[in-house]
């Protein structure tokens, strides 16, 4: 329970809460980037440098931009949104709260089993690369396949059908 952890936790939770709470979608995304950055910082604090930077690169650099683009493209000023929350927002928030309660209580109950303190492990990119290339080479390949498929699929889905009819 270090101070830095608390700060980061506050930033992260604040960012994500804002992301889920704000009215303006673009603000949500911007706040979300703060949350992502906080998570990345937590990774760094946990000594997972590579994952942290990957997190920033992927989420802040790619996903957030993507979301922003999507919002821009799907934003039609015609309809005025009375409310941003859906009809069943109450049930939804209740369920979410219940989930948190359950999980938190579970974590609290298991406090006894989670007591060991291991020293900060040093993991170099070299090691990550080695294990990616040897132990986890098959998942890596599958991942590449998945990304390619996702790339093509996204393009195909998002392509404007009108061009074909033209």
């Amino acid at each position: 329970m270090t101070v830095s952890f608390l700060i980061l936790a506050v930033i992260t939770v604040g960012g994500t809460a804002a992301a889920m709470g704000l009215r303006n979608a673009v603000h949500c995304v911007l706040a979300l980037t703060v949350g992502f950055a906080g998570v990345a910082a937590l990774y760094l604090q946990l000594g997972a440098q590579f994952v942290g930077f990957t997190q920033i690169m992927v989420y802040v650099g790619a996903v957030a931009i993507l979301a922003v683009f999507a919002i821009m493209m799907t934003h039609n000023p015609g309809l005025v949104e009375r409310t941003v929350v859906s009809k069943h927002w109450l049930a939804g928030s209740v369920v979410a709260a219940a989930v948190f309660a359950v999980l938190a209580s579970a974590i609290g109950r298991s406090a006894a089993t989670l007591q060991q303190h291991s020293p900060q492990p040093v993991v170099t990119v070299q090691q990550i690369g080695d294990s990616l290339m040897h132990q986890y080479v098959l998942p890596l390949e599958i991942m590449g396949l998945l990304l390619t498929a996702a790339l093509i699929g996204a393009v195909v889905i998002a392509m404007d059908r009108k061009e074909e009819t033209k």
Partner: protein
Amino acid sequence: MTQMFDQIFVIAKHWLLGYVPAVAQPLASAILSVVPVLIAFPLLFAITTVLERKGLGRIQNRYGPNRTGPAGFFQPIADGIKSLTKEDIVPLSADHIVHFLAPVLIVVAAFMAYAVLPIGRNMVILNLNAGVLFFFAIGSVVELSVFMAGWSSRSKYSLLGAMRAIAQMISYEVPLVLATVVVIMQAGSLSTVTIVERQAGYTGIWPHWYLFTPWGIVGFVLFMIAATAESNRSPFDLPEGESEIIAGYYIEYSGFKFALFFLGEYLGMFATSGMAITLFLGGWSAPLSVFTFVPSWIWFFAKLLVLIGGFIWIRGTLPRLRMDQLMNFAWEFILPMSLLNMLIAGVWHFMAPGVVRWLVCSAIIATPCILLSAGLRKKKRLMVRTYEFAE
């Protein structure tokens, strides 16, 4: 003696740290290593602006700034004063917070990128294990700030400009990263310091820079092209175009915020150039073994200035592209070539050193390059800009 000069900043830092109580030492060392960067590069920015304007003036056969100070060299100071004293106009309907955050964020991101650049021997702010990754992660933040700027100021022009800029940055970020991958493959490390050290050796008097390999040359060229596009410089300066979307995403900015954008762009340009130097031009290592007596940081800045000169030259001479040409160029030429370049790096790695390796790799890269460019030119996809109504 030369050692002394080489390490002068490091020595000075340790000397200063001696006066700091042990509790505050980490913080103090951080400050001591960050502040010089914060000073040096804005200075370089100031010099660069005036150099660029004068250079462009020469290229366009006119005098550059030549009034303020000796040969107009105080021009940047005057500009700074002007932009500081100007009124800071914020559009009424603008989203004030974001509108304010955008320029700050861009500058901060640009500065953070310097954290991993080894400016000289033992002169890197933090030697990260995944330095290169860090660099690009930070670089991706710039896009976000650009978007913020464009979106927050509630203006069609700025929004369109931001979209353009982001599209361009994303499409050129891919080849930028791919071009560095070859170096990482060869150096076997993501740490900038290690990469520079790998290149610091000499055979005879010739250095082991990655530039002097087929994939190195190709990678360098690709990297520089992508960097030019990343930093929105001519001939890729599409996001701002007087004829189409006036000043692009910072059209609604004025005064100091505008200056901040300006600063941010140049800092980004320096940062990418510095990364190019680190990756391909052997960082702070001397170009010939006989020059090793010159301090390493001098070499770094010398190379940096050379690259900046190149940027200025290109800006002065090349015409702009059209938007579609820009995109096609990125996806149909730069990207395949960089992928191919990775293949060549692999081939190079597994072939025995010698002339054969050179010939094979050069052949592998040269033929597709020629064929691809010829094919694209035939498809009229990749050409210098044609002026439809002028001429």
